[in-house]
C-alpha cells in the first residue's frame, strides 16, 4: 500500500511537471552579429599606416571611435531592444587590412526570431545617460573609467565621436608643419538618431551577420559632396564641423 502511494505521488509530480512544460511557450531566438567597419571612399580603412587622398593631398587617420545607443530592431510587433549603450572602438580593429575587413563586432545571442524591417539607434550618448559620468559606472562599463578619455569634464558630456588624424597640407610628406586634426563631438544637441530601413529575417537557431560600413570620406563631406576644409578648421577646436560630422553619420553609416 505504501509503495502504491509513493508511486502515485511520484507519477502525479511527473505529470504536473510535464503539463507545466507543455504550457510554457519559449520564444525562439537567433544570434545576431553586427559588425562596424570603416571605409574611405569604399575602400577598407587602415589606421596610421595607410595614406588616402583628401583634396589631392595625403591624409591619414589615427583614431575613430563613437558611441551607439538605444539600439533596437523594429517590426510590426514593436521594438526589440538590442543594447542601451555600446562603445564602437574602430581604433583597435583597423590597424591591419585583415582586421579592418573584420571590423568591430557586437554579438546579440538571443534576439527573438522574426522579420524586422528597421534597425534604429543613435550615434552618441542620449541625454539621460549623458547626465552621468565615468564615476557612476564600474570601470569596464562602456561609459566607465576604462573609457574616461571619452568624457569631457568641461562640457559635462561624453564625447560622442572622435575622428583624429593628420593631413599633409603641402604634399611633401608628413612632418611637424602639417595639420593634426581631432574632431571631438559631444553635448546633447549633437546626438544623431539613425533609422535604417532594411528587411532582416532572423530564424531560430541561426546566426545572422549584418555589416555597417562607415565611410569616413562621406563623414567629412557636405551634402553637396564638397569636403571640409581641414586647413581652416581649428585643428583642436570643437566647433561647427562637429555638427556636420555628427549629422553625416546618417549618410556615412550604411547597412551592407
Amino acid at each position, binding site marked *: 500500500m505504501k509503495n502504491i502511494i509513493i508511486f502515485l505521488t511520484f507519477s502525479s509530480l511527473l505529470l504536473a511537471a510535464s503539463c507545466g512544460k507543455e504550457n510554457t511557450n519559449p520564444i525562439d531566438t537567433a544570434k545576431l552579429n553586427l559588425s562596424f567597419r570603416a571605409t574611405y571612399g569604399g575602400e577598407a580603412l587602415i589606421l*596610421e*599606416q595607410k595614406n588616402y587622398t583628401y583634396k589631392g593631398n595625403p591624409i591619414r587617420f*589615427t*583614431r575613430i571611435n563613437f558611441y551607439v545607443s538605444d539600439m533596437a530592431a523594429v517590426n510590426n510587433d514593436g521594438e526589440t531592444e538590442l543594447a542601451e549603450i555600446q562603445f564602437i572602438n574602430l581604433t583597435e580593429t583597423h*590597424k591591419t587590412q585583415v582586421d579592418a575587413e573584420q571590423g568591430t563586432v557586437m554579438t546579440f545571442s538571443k534576439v527573438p526570431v522574426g522579420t524586422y524591417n528597421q534597425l534604429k539607434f543613435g550615434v552618441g550618448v542620449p541625454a539621460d545617460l549623458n547626465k552621468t*559620468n*565615468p*564615476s*557612476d*559606472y*564600474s*570601470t*569596464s562599463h562602456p561609459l*566607465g*573609467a*576604462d*573609457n*574616461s*578619455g571619452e*568624457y*569631457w*569634464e*568641461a562640457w559635462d558630456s561624453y564625447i560622442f565621436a572622435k575622428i*583624429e*588624424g*593628420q593631413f599633409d597640407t603641402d604634399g611633401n610628406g*608628413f*612632418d*611637424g*608643419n602639417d595639420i*593634426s*586634426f*581631432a574632431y571631438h563631438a559631444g553635448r546633447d544637441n549633437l546626438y544623431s538618431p539613425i533609422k535604417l530601413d532594411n528587411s532582416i529575417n532572423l530564424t531560430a537557431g541561426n546566426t545572422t551577420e549584418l555589416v555597417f560600413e562607415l565611410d569616413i570620406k562621406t563623414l567629412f563631406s557636405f551634402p553637396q559632396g564638397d569636403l571640409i576644409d581641414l586647413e581652416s578648421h581649428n*585643428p*583642436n577646436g570643437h566647433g561647427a564641423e562637429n555638427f556636420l560630422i555628427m549629422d553625416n553619420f546618417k549618410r556615412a553609416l550604411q547597412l551592407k
Partner: protein
Amino acid sequence: MFLSVKNTYLYLFLLCLFFSCKKNNTPPVNPNPTTTEFKDLSTISYNPIPVELPVISPLPPMDIPSDNPLTEDGIALGRFLFYDPILSGNEKMACADCHLPKGGFTDNLAVSTGVDGITGLRSSMSLINSGYFTKGLFWDGRIQTLEEQALLPVEDVIELHNEWENVEEKLRAHNDYPARFRKAFGINTTEGITKELAVKAIAQFERSLVSANSKYDQVIRGEAFFEDDELTGFELFFDEPNELPDAECGHCHNAPLFTVNQYFNNGIDSVASLEDFKDKGLGAITNNLFDNGKFRAPSLRNIALTAPYMHDGRFETLEEVIDHYNEGAHFADNIDPLIMTKGLGLSAQHKKDLIAFLHTLTDTSFVNNPAYQNPFE
C-alpha cells in the same frame, strides 16, 4: 563461460591483491626530495572576512576578479609579501624598494637598480589606484592583470633575480607565512603555498591602494575650494570654455583616474624613423611599427610625489614636463594628433597655475595611511 557471483567476488579480490602488491613493489617517489614534509595547517582557523573597497567619490567602483576576492587576511598577507625581501635572490630587496609610499609608490629614481646592481631601462610606475588600470600594465602594457604583473619582478634578472620555486620553499619553511596563507586562502598544508597564491595576495594589497582624498577630490565633492592659481590650472588642464589656452592635458590624463589607460607617442624623442626609438615601448610587445615609442599614459594622481617623470625619468621636475609640451614635441609618424609639435602657447604664469593644480592631486592622507606602510617597522 560466465562467472558465478561467488567466483566474481573471488576474481575481483585477486585483481585488487595483484594491483595492491604491484603498488607495494614500486618505490615511493618523492616529488620534491629537497623539501621537508609539508606541514598540516588545517587546525588554524580559516574565516575569510570579505573586504569591500570603499567607493570614494569621484572614483568609480573597482572591478575585482571573481577568482581573487579581497579579504582582510589576503590583503594583510599581500602587504607582508610586498615589503619582505624574502622574494629576492639575496633577500635584500622587496617590491617596496621600488614602490615606496612616500614616493607615491615609486622609488623617485629615473630608473631602478635591482639586487645585482643592474640598472633597468625604465622608471618604476606608481601603484596608486592600480586596481583601476586596465588595458595592460607596465609602461608597455605587456601584462593584463595585477596577478600576472606580480609574477614577473621576482624572476627578472634586473629586478629581484630569484626563482619562484626558491621563494615557495622559503615561504613553506617560514615561521609565520604558512599560517598567513592558511588564513588568507584556506590551504590545508604548506604544499598549498604557491607562487599563484603569493601573487594573488600581492594583487589584493595593490588593489587596496586607493587614493581619492586629494584636494582635487575634496573640491569635486564640494568639501573645499581651489585657490585662484589652482582653479586657473584646472581650467587649463581641462580646457574649460574661456579665453585660456588649452593645455591639452585631459585627453590622456582625464579624470577621475587621471589616466585614460591608453598608450601614446607624446613626442619626447626625436627620431628619423619609427624604427629608431631606443626604447620601442608598446611596439616591442605588439610588433606593430606604428606602436614604437608609445607608452602608457600614467595616472597623475600624486604626481608631485613621483618625480622624475616619463618612462625613463628624463624630466626631473613638473616644470620640465610642461616645458616639453609647451615648447613643441618632436614629430614622428605616429605622434598623437593631440600632442602639439608647435607648442601650446602657455605663459610663465599659466605654467605655474598648471603646476599649482597638479599639486592638488596629492593625497597626503593616502601616502601616510598606516595600512600601506611597512609592517616590519
